[in-house]
């Protein structure tokens, strides 16, 4: 199978010099790709380029062979769903968070009881909230799921749950790109490991 993303000679500037420089790599369309590396090497920065929360200062990022900047950015972000390290809940119930439409099947898919839909989102545990964020991302029917250390804020039990979920989503055909600071997680969960170093 081909590549979903390709970084071509990418540079991203920070306040004091480049965070990432001359970075080139491919991300496969199939399976889970883990981006690993020491802290501060710009893993999160690389991830944020994928849904254009940020743009490179030099070089390009390609999606399916085309420059990301040639896509409509709002449509792109629905296709490439980004879930951050710390779950962000919006005011209102879980159902409000998931947005309009019928999402009956979505909550069980991420391991939450369907009955949780009426609960206030800010009363969820952090593990439940992270699952809800995944459900909210899946509600948009994305092709790619981009995860920034999705388990770093979670307790060990929730962590295993999220890992199993991520693995099952990837088997279901989603491209999954995740940053992980945990080499064990990367090796047992990822089909491809992308090591970033200075």
């Amino acid at each position, binding site marked *: 199978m081909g590549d979903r993303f390709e970084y071509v000679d990418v540079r991203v500037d920070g306040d004091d010099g480049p965070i990432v420089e001359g970075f080139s790599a491919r991300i496969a369309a199939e399976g889970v790709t883990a981006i690993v590396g020491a802290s501060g090497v710009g893993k999160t920065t690389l991830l944020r380029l994928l849904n*254009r929360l940020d743009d490179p200062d030099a070089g390009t990022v390609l999606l399916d062979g085309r420059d990301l900047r040639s896509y409509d950015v709002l449509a792109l*972000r629905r296709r490439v769903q980004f879930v951050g390290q710390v779950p962000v809940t*919006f005011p209102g119930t879980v159902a409000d968070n998931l947005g309009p439409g019928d999402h009956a099947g979505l909550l069980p898919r991420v391991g939450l009881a369907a009955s949780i839909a009426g609960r206030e989102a800010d009363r969820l545990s952090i593990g439940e909230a992270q699952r809800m964020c995944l459900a909210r991302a899946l509600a*948009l029917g994305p092709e790619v799921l981009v995860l920034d250390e999705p388990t770093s804020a979670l307790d060990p039990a929730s962590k295993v749950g999220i890992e199993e979920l991520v693995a099952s989503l990837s088997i279901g055909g989603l491209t999954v790109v995740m940053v992980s600071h945990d080499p064990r997680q990367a090796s047992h969960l990822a089909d491809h490991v992308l090591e970033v170093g200075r």
Partner: protein
Amino acid sequence: MTDLSGAIGYPDVALAVVLVVVGAAVSRFRRLDLERDMLVATVRSFAQLLAIGYVLAFVFDGNGGFSAGVLVVMVTTASLTAGRRARRVPGAPVVAGVALTAATLGTLGVLAALRIVPVEARTIVPLGSMVLSNAMASVSLVMTRLRDDLAAHRREVEARLSLGHTSHQASLPWHRGALRTGMLPIVDTTKVVGLVALPGAMTGMILAGAEPLEAIRLQLVVMYMLLGGNAFAALVAGELTVRRLFTRDHQLVRSLRRAS
């Protein structure tokens, strides 16, 4: 009937400085470190008002064509002041300038079009300056509040952007909060006018010897004008600030993302 027009000489002004000394004493006593600012404020207010007194005397004395110039100077100063207060918004003086110009022209335009006040230097300059000074406070509040709230909630903002929201949708809760913050003072002032304070225009007319009912009619026009002017200024400032804090591609600007 006693009226104060012509009754206050420069020696009286000098005596009133006693009250500034009280203010400075409070600052010293509580270590607010504001004495220097108070001194600067006192000297500046004297110099500026004296200067504008001469300018207005000249403009009202058959040189009405210069009122536009006076207003331009006022709008520019207000824009720079509000812009400095909100300097963490990129291009803040321009944002403030557009908002204040729109508010002043719009409000005076409505008053003139409805023939509520005659279009002449003696009405346009003081009314314009009132709209401006109120709107200036509102504009800098809206800009700083919106910028600081978006910086503080950038995780939430980016979570919304990541779901495909536009920058306007993603910033809406904080945008709305900033507009409310910018408008509440004038709304509250308008609610309690006459109960808590006898406002400036009315007090001025009464001190100058006008009938109270005549004075309140002017004051009502002024209050409604300030309310409208403030709302208009806040609206424009909020809109432009959002545009300055996001890129065209619905990304938070970097200065905001990396703010601590």
